[in-house]
């Protein structure tokens, strides 16, 4: 699969009746998608969001707005999404179950849709103990699977969980996370199937530093035909140094970095570890692209956002298709999706 040669030239007709965002169009047109994570500001200035977004926008198809990831408080994901759609960017609205109950979450989903958000990534969320305010109360009223299904019910049946009708349902493209790199390994592909059954249309995985493990996972995914039911984007990112890698794999929940990768960083000459980390990331991207059933990558470069553009360019993934050609993000609210009666 290459950026320039989509497998289907024009299949807009195959799109669902709801309006689709840029990410969905890229994926449905068979192109290899690129999403990137925006580092949310600790600031009340919208310009900080735009400064972070502008370096990502030309090299990716959608920008993920994280929801206090690692349980560290930053500007809220719904507000970042509202700022991004206002400027014509395509955000992925990350929603975690850690901080809000079902009432707050459904309200935020509607609000995000009203702001022109298409893509929603439904997450469980890192536990409060992972962050810098471990005294906080954890909510987890819904889990990520229930959240996915709730968002799907709002979209397809046009109701809240209470059964109360929505006058205009949100036209979401629904996403879920997967982590193929932590136990129970055999069950991870089955668990992915469960999330797809609950409504996931695209998947963004945790950081991949272990290609053999990813290949085993994808083999099982293909055996179940799941890659044909949802678009799978593999998480990647550069490691700043051997020390940073050590920190990530011991302190950040769910990140698995094999010894070989850490050793390779340690082996790099002094002052060259950052470049080596970038090289490892590009090599992983190139190998991930060769794995059947992988529909794209999701780049997470915590505090190294200036590297994202270089990584994507040097991986041969530019130019990006459908680049901010139309401000479709602002159209969604005027075009309701037909209600499906069941």
């Amino acid at each position: 699969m290459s950026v320039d040669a989509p497998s289907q030239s024009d299949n807009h007709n195959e799109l669902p009746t709801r309006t689709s965002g840029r990410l969905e169009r890229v994926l449905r047109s068979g192109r290899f998608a690129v999403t990137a994570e925006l580092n949310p500001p600790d600031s009340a200035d919208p310009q900080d969001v735009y400064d972070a977004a502008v370096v990502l926008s030309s090299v990716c198809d959608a920008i993920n707005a994280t929801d206090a990831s690692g349980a560290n408080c930053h500007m809220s994901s719904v507000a970042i999404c509202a700022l991004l759609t206002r400027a014509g960017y395509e955000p992925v609205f990350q929603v975690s179950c850690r901080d809000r109950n079902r009432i707050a979450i459904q309200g935020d989903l509607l609000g995000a849709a009203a702001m022109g958000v298409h893509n929603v990534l439904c997450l469980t969320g890192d536990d409060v103990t992972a962050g810098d305010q471990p005294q906080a109360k954890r909510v987890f009223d819904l889990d990520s699977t229930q959240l996915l299904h709730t968002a799907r019910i709002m979209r397809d049946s046009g109701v809240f969980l209470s059964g109360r009708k929505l006058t205009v349902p949100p036209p979401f493209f629904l996403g879920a996370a997967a982590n193929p790199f932590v136990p129970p390994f055999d069950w991870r592909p089955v668990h992915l199937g469960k999330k797809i059954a609950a409504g996931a249309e695209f998947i963004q995985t945790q950081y991949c530093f272990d290609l053999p493990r990813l290949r085993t996972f994808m083999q099982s995914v293909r055996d179940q035909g799941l890659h044909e039911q949802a678009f799978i984007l593999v998480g990647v990112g550069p490691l700043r140094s051997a020390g940073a890698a050590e920190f990530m794999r011991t302190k950040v929940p769910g990140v698995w970095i094999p010894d070989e990768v850490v050793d390779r960083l340690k082996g790099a000459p002094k002052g060259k570890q950052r470049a080596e980390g970038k090289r490892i990331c590009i090599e992983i991207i190139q190998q991930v692209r060769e794995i059947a059933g992988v529909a794209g990558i999701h780049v997470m470069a915590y505090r190294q956002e200036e590297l994202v553009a270089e990584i994507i360019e040097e991986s041969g993934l530019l130019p990006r298709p459908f680049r901010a050609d139309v401000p479709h993000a602002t159209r969604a609210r005027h075009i309701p999706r037909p209600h499906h009666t069941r």
Partner: protein
Amino acid sequence: MQGYFHSHPHLLEKAYQLAERAAWALNPMVKKIGYARVERVIKGPEDVVKGWVFGCHRCGQCVLHSTGMSCPMGCPKNLRNGPCGGVRPNGHCEVKPEMRCVWVVAYESSLQMPIYGHELIEIQPPVDRRLEDTSAWINMLTGVDKQTPPGWIPLEAVK
């Protein structure tokens, strides 16, 4: 003791199956006496036994047999549909490093559970928080534990 039971999940599911049959057999009598009255009597013993065997968190809508006889409310995130992405490489919990992930246990146990093991893939609806600290057995008999939010559509109906 929990360790013994968790290494024999088939015994647990068999015990559950028998207890469920017994509960339904006694249901007409329970109904006659009154669910609330019976609940007052059995709530204490139920808490003690389930607390001892499963580390029960008294959510009042027990799905143990569908989750590998491993209580999903024992998960610090209360996940009822599978593990989060934070499971440690040794299969332990992200939040409580000394505890095995309840979903790692659930998955392993379900493989040894011929009766209910397959139910692990079923999608569990959101919890009714009002049922917390009520008797799950009585809730099963009255059917309130099966009631989902009015807008919730069972997965079979979606396709």
